[in-house]
């Protein structure tokens, strides 16, 4: 009985406290701004195609294309979908028909990601976290604050702390688990040898550096830094332990109250993604924008509004 009470208290304390309606509304806005860049980066290759060119028959349609019987690509539709996606994202940012906009974004991502991943059967995982966040926004009251929807309603609904907190806390929990699960996956499939100095990290470093060929002098054409690093297994071993530690300990971030400590951890994770992008061509470079979920954006927004924005405006008017 006492255990149940204690578990219930911890559950309620975690999921239902910590954020205001304003925080939720601002998070919707800032994540939306991040998504504008993210969508473009992710679907840029699809936008290079000829909109009235050949209709390609997918070599391995993604599972929901198989289910729906979508076998080929109509390029013009992808261009239309991208335009709708960007429009819906702007609509989500300003909070106009917020829930409908989020639903449209989700559907457009499903379609465009399906197209991109069905061309050659390579399924990418970059949209998984943003999709979970969008799904939780969809269930939340994020459109009730900092939105046109709320302004148009003369008596906007007040968002309680518990209503604002649970979607953000669930997002945080998912992101933390995502990194934790990646350790489980590595150990399940490859064992602890994955983290060894002469393990997977070294292999990827070498593969990425030699794939564009080697000069007659025996030097790699591209990614010389990766090649150099691959020759130091003892250093790679340190990186391997760092990867293991930070992925395994990511859930602890949920217990850290200090904003500075959180920021330091998040900066470390961001550096990790930058490094893996530069050295190993692991394309999760834009994912750090989702880490906004780990912060209360109210003071940051205030600072931007009162300090940063007037500063930029002043500089802009001087330049003009």
């Amino acid at each position: 009985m006492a255990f149940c009470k204690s578990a219930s208290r911890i559950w309620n304390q975690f999921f239902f406290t910590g954020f205001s309606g304003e925080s939720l509304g601002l998070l919707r806005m800032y994540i939306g701004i991040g998504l504008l860049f993210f969508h473009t980066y992710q679907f840029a290759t699809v936008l290079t195609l000829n909109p009235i060119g050949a209709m390609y028959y997918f070599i391995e349609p993604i599972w929901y294309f198989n289910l729906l019987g979508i076998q080929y690509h109509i390029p013009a539709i992808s261009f239309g979908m991208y335009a709708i996606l960007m429009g819906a994202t702007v609509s989500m940012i300003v909070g106009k028909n917020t829930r409908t906009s989020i639903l449209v974004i989700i559907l457009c991502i499903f379609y465009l990601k399906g197209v991109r991943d069905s061309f050659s059967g390579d399924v990418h995982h970059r949209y998984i976290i943003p999709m979970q966040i969008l799904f939780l926004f969809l269930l939340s009251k994020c459109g009730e604050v900092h939105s046109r929807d709320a302004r148009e309603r003369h008596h906007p609904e007040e968002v309680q702390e518990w209503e604002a907190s649970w979607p953000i806390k669930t997002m945080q929990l998912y992101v933390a688990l995502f990194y934790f699960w990646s350790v489980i996956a590595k150990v399940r499939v490859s064992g602890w040898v994955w983290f060894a100095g002469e393990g997977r990290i070294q292999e990827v470093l070498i593969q990425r550096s030699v794939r564009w060929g080697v000069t007659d002098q025996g030097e790699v054409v591209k990614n010389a830094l990766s090649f150099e690093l691959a020759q130091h297994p003892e250093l790679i071993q340190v990186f391997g332990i760092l990867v293991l530690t930070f992925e395994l300990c990511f859930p602890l971030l949920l217990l850290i109250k200090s904003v500075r400590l959180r920021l330091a951890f998040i900066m470390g994770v961001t550096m990790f993604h930058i490094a893996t992008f530069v050295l190993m061509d692991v394309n999760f470079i834009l994912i750090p924008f989702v880490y906004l979920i780990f912060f209360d954006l109210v003071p940051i927004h205030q600072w931007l509004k009162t300090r940063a924005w007037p500063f930029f405006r002043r500089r802009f008017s001087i330049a003009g």
Partner: protein
Amino acid sequence: MSRRTVNITIVLYLIVVWAAVIFRIDYFPLTWVPMYSVYEPSETISKSIKDKAAMRKGLRVTHRDGSISYVSYKDLNIPKPNYRRLHFSRTFGTAPPKHKQGNTELGSLNRFVRGLNEDESNFSVDWEWRMFWTLNKTLQFKPADPKFIVRIEVSKQRRIYRKADLAKGDASKVEIQTQQAVLDWQDQWVKRWNHGLL
């Protein structure tokens, strides 16, 4: 939503995302986060070299009437990175990483859930048939057409390094292998044609 409904929603959500991890489900938007998880220790590292000129030219194909042409990413109207994977991987029967991740160390529970025998793969795709399907369907050739593609040819260079040499910074000791893939259309596939991949 009432607080009770929210509690139920969170519990259901956590059950679903954890089930994906336990049962190794990697169907968007669910995942068990398998990216880069597969590592099989070996003495050597082999890597195919991306020949940009060959890629621009495209796959060499023979039509039913005996004529020869090239099919490039522009003809198929697909992005270059995706075409590169068709050109250097699928034609050689190499599956995307997702397949290897899904096939490696599946474990008895996940074999049982999927009804797989001990030596049965979770993912298994006949890439040869699919290449003919994709190319011919995209270019609107039917099996009886004289322009129907009956042969696909492609070659690539593989460089095989010994890990011990590379770890010493010596990339000059390399064994270079030229691999060639020749895929021939099989008339028994005509039956599959109308069903496609579904």
